[in-house]
């Protein structure tokens, strides 16, 4: 483990201007620079990746992570909201694949079914209804791009630094002790793999997951069900109650809060 916080800091320092350049409101040349900077930051981060198990796992992880992150960046930076949604769908698929890789089969599928299959399609639906052209002026602008890019980068920097420093710190677990003893190493690895196979990576993952869900977390499931019902009713009430709500006339006072973009729309 050769984690150095400086690499993360450098990647963050590169990533923030990259995001700034990529966000709506810049010229296309600026976007090219953003892509270059972002690739550099991504490469720096990729160099910090650790090998996980065999090369198949490692490369699968790298591919899925890259897909997820690139799609995420594209989601945030695309000018056309429909493209944003489509890229987010791709990002979600990548996330689902990452979840699969971690043995969370059910969650992976649930993510695809619920997020990509239902939520996102509904959003796409509304997006298309609301702005079929996808050329609204407010999608070509961002609010304080530099400030928000900085804030996001600082958060990422702090989080990643914490990860490296905390994980690289001295840890004394049973496995560590076993690892320090070369003779016992193979045995320790074997034991750990067996434990994993019995635990989160179990063959009967969904059955175990289900029994935990409807056993220990039964009350939470009920609460979540009630929450869903309430949301359903609330949604119906919000939309149905204003079926004939008239379109609000734009305020006449010039000082009223209408951005020039909205005025142009009108």
């Amino acid at each position, binding site marked *: 483990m050769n984690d150095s916080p400086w690499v993360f800091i450098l990647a963050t320092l590169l990533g923030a201007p990259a995001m700034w350049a990529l966000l709506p409101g810049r010229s296309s040349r600026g976007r090219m620079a953003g892509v270059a900077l972002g690739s550099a930051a991504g490469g720096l981060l990729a160099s910090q990746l650790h090998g996980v198990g065999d090369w198949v796992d490692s490369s699968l992880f790298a591919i899925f992570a890259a897909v997820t992150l690139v799609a995420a960046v594209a989601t*945030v930076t695309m000018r056309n909201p429909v493209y944003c949604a489509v890229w987010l769908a791709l990002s979600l698929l990548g996330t689902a694949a990452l979840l699969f890789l971690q043995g*969370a089969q059910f*969650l992976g599928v649930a993510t695809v079914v619920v997020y990509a299959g239902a939520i996102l399609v509904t959003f796409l639906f509304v997006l298309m209804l609301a702005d079929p052209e996808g050329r609204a002026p407010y999608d070509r602008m961002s609010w304080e791009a530099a400030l928000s890019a900085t804030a996001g980068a600082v958060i990422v920097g702090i989080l990643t630094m914490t990860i490296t420093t905390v994980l690289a710190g001295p840890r004394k677990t049973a496995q560590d002790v076993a690892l320090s003893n070369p003779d016992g190493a193979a045995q320790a690895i074997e034991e750990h793999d067996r434990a994993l196979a019995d635990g*989160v990576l179990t063959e009967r993952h969904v059955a175990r*997951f289900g029994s935990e869900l409807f056993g220990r977390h039964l009350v939470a499931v009920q609460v979540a069900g009630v929450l869903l019902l309430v949301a359903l009713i609330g949604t119906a009430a919000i939309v149905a109650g204003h079926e004939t709500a008239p379109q609000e006339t734009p305020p006449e006072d010039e000082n009223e809060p209408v951005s020039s973009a909205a005025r142009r729309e009108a």
Partner: protein
Amino acid sequence: MMEHEIAWLHNYLTVGALLFGIGLIGFLSRRNLIVMFLAVEMMLQGVSLSLVAWCRFHNDGAFGGQMLVLFIIAVAACEAAVALALFLMLFRRRGTLDIAVWQQLREEDQPAYVDQQIPELPEPARTDWPKLPPAGVRPEADPERTDYRDHV
């Protein structure tokens, strides 16, 4: 192997943090209500990744982290439904999804936020409409009632 487990965790946490950060940037800077919401979903995905990674790292037989993610998905579904309904209502009121239109909650004597410059759209590329056969007279097209939108 333990080393590998730490590596798994490390990698996933990094990806989770990046997803979270990118989503945050999107939420803060994008102006479209729905795109903002998409960014929020992305932040949730970042958190979910981290949770699942920790679940595996601790070899949590009770699937604590994964449970939490499942409930995150449930809550996100509710949130999406309600948010979408609200967006629809907002859209019906003003005919735009711009979040900057909704700033009445500021203090009375504060000036409204107005965009300084709106980037112009690049001129749409010239479309070569299919030509009519010579036998007919080209009908006068009503620009208000075109079947095609001018651009995608």
